[in-house]
């Protein structure tokens, strides 16, 4: 185990557990403090610490491609709970914590705008728990532990979404829907894990992988896989299991939407990759068939139908939420190909999608703070009044469309190359149709932003965009551009991750 360069050795050695523990621990003081500012500071420091740990772990895995294994409480795996970091989840952890930090920077003005003062510290506390849960899901090497973390992350998320009720009562039903669906998903997952335990007698994922190689024909294993895939598909909003998502994204507080859009579904997606390629052997016929005949068609259907749904939305956030479902289809498509190139493209799009949706939702948050903009026709003339924010939004939209030299183009490029390598012309066609639909739904917003004249009276309401929003917003927007131009690092990460996922399964 290599020592990272960032943290003192003592901390570095425990980085895996700190990453999860710090936000969890800090959530308590955040809840106790009664002012939002203090809560925010604690949450931010927790996220920053987590980020540091993630960077540490990321560099450590990058250094020699090693797999970091951390045995909780000194119990060695497979008997104790193991935290396990390789190329795949190191990248995810980095994305998760980074997104958390940026979202938190954005959070202060946003939360002050949207959440009642007496609930702000609780809000941050819930957020920290959720972050901790997500990090745990990403890092744990134990299947049951993973379920636990999944619940830890989900429950505060329901609460966070419900806090949107302050602004729109529909947030409550959305949160409830999400709760029901999340519970079903988690239950399915745990049922699947149960089946696996029944078949193999172990819960450690590395151990499972080793044992499952020879249990290809076992019906119980197959049952387990089906439950796990569907359960996680629910969390990852795989079409048509996405029905909870638009409401949740649309009515949650802006900050929650930003955070969820960039992280929550991504983590579920990671788990699907982990199980499909690593825990189950990718050369198992049932995995390949499930990916090819179930996941891929659904992914393609999602890409097109959800884009069409986006096209007809009147609420900007709902529009983007449907777009997210479509984009999740892209990732699933990459996954469905079952090849390393496909997984790599999927992971790349996972990262890139976080970048673009982060920008878009943040910019929407800024619009909402300044003008209370919710609907598309309310965007009229914003380009002239908030040029920086609108420009960032435009950049994000272009990236979503896939204009060259944005990250969106890069992921589409790799996805299409992977599809072509597979000979899946229909997949290429689906990507392009979805892209064209993306053009149209982005156009609907952009034309209102830039071309239509400013309505009477709107000019008087002008408020400057808070710097705390502008900084992460512009940073993310530039990241869209920079990684669109200099794609090598992200591509490298994605390829490493894909290699980790696939080779770990077959190699170990």
């Amino acid at each position, binding site marked *: 185990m290599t020592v990272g360069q960032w943290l003192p050795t003592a901390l570095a050695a425990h980085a895996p557990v700190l990453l999860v523990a710090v936000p969890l621990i800090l959530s308590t003081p955040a809840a106790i403090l009664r002012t939002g500012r203090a809560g925010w500071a604690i949450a931010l420091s927790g996220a920053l610490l987590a980020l540091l740990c993630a960077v540490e772990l990321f560099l450590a895995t990058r250094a020699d491609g090693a797999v970091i294994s951390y045995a909780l409480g000194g119990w060695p795996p497979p008997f104790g709970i193991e935290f396990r970091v390789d190329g795949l989840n190191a990248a995810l952890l980095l994305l998760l914590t980074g997104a958390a930090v940026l979202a938190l920077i954005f959070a202060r003005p946003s939360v002050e705008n949207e959440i009642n003062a007496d609930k702000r510290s609780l809000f941050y506390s819930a957020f920290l728990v959720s972050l901790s849960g997500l990090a745990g899901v990403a890092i744990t090497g134990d299947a049951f532990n993973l379920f636990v973390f999944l619940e830890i992350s989900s429950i505060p998320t329901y609460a966070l979404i419900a806090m949107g009720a302050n602004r729109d009562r529909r947030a409550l039903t959305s949160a409830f829907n999400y709760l029901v669906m999340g519970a079903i998903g988690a239950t399915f997952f745990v049922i699947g894990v149960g089946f696996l335990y029944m078949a193999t007698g172990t819960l450690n994922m590395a151990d499972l992988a080793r044992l499952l190689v020879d249990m290809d024909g076992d019906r119980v294993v197959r049952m387990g896989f089906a439950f796990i895939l569907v359960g996680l598909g629910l969390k990852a909003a795989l079409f048509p299991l996405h029905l909870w998502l638009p409401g949740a994204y649309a009515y949650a507080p802006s900050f929650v939407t930003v955070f969820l859009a960039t992280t929550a579904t991504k983590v579920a997606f990671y788990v699907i990759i982990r199980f499909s390629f690593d825990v189950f052997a990718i050369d198992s016929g049932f995995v390949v068939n499930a990916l090819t005949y179930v996941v891929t068609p659904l992914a393609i259907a999602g890409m097109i139908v959800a884009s069409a749904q986006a096209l007809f939305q009147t609420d900007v956030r709902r529009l983007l939420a449907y777009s997210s479902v479509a984009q999740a289809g892209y990732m699933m498509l990459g996954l469905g190909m079952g090849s390393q190139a496909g997984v790599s493209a999927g992971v790349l799009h996972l990262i890139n999608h976080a970048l673009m949706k982060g920008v878009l939702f943040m910019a929407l948050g800024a619009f909402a703070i300044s003008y209370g903009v919710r609907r598309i026709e309310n965007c009229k003339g914003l380009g002239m009044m908030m040029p920086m924010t609108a420009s960032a939004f435009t950049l994000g939209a272009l990236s979503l*469309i*896939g204009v*060259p*030299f944005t990250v969106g183009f*890069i992921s589409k490029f790799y996805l299409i190359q992977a599809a*072509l390598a597979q000979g899946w012309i229909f997949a290429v066609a689906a990507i392009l*149709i979805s892209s*064209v639909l993306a053009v149209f739904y982005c*156009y609907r917003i952009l034309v209102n932003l830039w071309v239509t004249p400013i309505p009477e009276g709107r000019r008087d309401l002008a408020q400057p965009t808070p710097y705390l929003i502008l900084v992460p917003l512009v940073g993310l927007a530039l990241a869209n551009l920079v990684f669109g131009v200099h*794609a090598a690092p992200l591509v490298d990460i994605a390829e490493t991750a894909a290699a980790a996922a696939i080779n770990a399964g077959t190699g170990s």
Partner: protein
Amino acid sequence: MSWTPELALILALILPLIGGVGVLALGRNPDMRETATLITAGTLVLVVIYLVQVSGQRPEIIVFELAPGLELKFKLEPLGAMFAMVASGLWIINSLYSTAYMRGNNEKNQTRFYFCFTISIAAAMGVALSGNLLTLFFFYEALSLATYPLVAHKGDAKARRGASIYLGILLTTSIGLFLPAVFAVYAFTGSTDFVAGGILAGATGPIAGSILLVLFAFGIGKAALMPVHPWLPNAMVAPTPVSALLHAVAVVKAGVFSILKTVVYIFGVDYMQTLPAADILAWIAGLSIVIASVIAMTKDNFKARLAYSTVSQLSYVTLGAMLASPAALLGAAVQIVMHAYGKITLFMAAGGVYTGAGKTEISQLNGLGRCMPITFTVFGIGALSIIGVPPFGGVWPKIFLMQGAADDGQPWMTLMLIGSTLLNIGYLLPIVIRGFSRPGSGFSPMKPGNLPALAWIAPLITAAGTVALFFAIGPLIDFLTPVFTTQRAP
């Protein structure tokens, strides 16, 4: 830093952007703003002239790399230098004209107008100088986006609708067809570079190659090959200088230039001959030529008629590219230049009529030529050049294309060109004749001086250009011949 072709290459791309910033910064002072535009345009022309001279060296720059073989890359070659020269040269004239037109008609948002104009030119330069398909695609899209506010300039519902169709068709075709073709080229060859003699030969069979060719031909919607042409007539809601930009300077020319460049440097002349789709597309182009001309004849709106004329004329280039014999390709390349000068003259004259007399329909033009003799004379010259009669430049493409069709073993393709010529006469010359010799009905003659001087000087310059180009064909051929005769490296 020393003065090298590479530096000039970058400069040609950046100069318009700097100009754009200048325009934004000076937006409050219209005179200064226009001066900035003109200075930028002038400097750009100088740089491009230098580029034309060094284009034989084919300098190239890789700005950055996305993936192996997939870079933002610029490469100077004669075809691109020619297009850059056309675009930059006409930009300066169009800018002169714009000042007269925009002020004469009291248009709003002029700063945005000039800014978007400079961005469009930058994008056109990018298209001209692109070194691979990816770069071409990027600047192609940038051009679509940058011209959108220009088309929607008036901002009313009609303008927005026209502009929506404009952008919708262009983006849909480019993303739906052009982009996958680019990806497929990369998938087949591991590169999208423009290489003399083409890169696809040997990498794909005739069927795959044909499909690619079809994707390019229709995906490059700016070339307005029927049936992807409707954006062009719909873009007529724009102010006249924008129409001139669309039709002559940048947009449609970028489209046909892209097709030509793709055919020459991606498919390669020899490989094109083996593709069954090339013949089919040549016939589609031929039919486009004729059908668009027929439609043009039925249009009474001045600009709509010119728009369909453009659709027809653009297909000459596509036709030349699809015939893909050296003479036909030469004809296609020369058509880009000649049509640019002819059509911009027509548009500026049409704009002059609008500015001076407020007329937009052809049936209103009776006797107007006697009040605006220069405007109508230059319109006549432009029309004759488009029709293709000596001594105007427009005749050369027709000659080369006919020769190319004959060389390609399709002498009857010339019938299309003959028919087109007759139709051109039918829809262009009556305008002039109506203006000069029909008695006006209820039209009060303008006061002299109503039309700003620049609004007739600018088309006069381009009209003179059509004559000059007729005589300058020799150097132009010498300049372009290496492009079309270079064989693929063994």
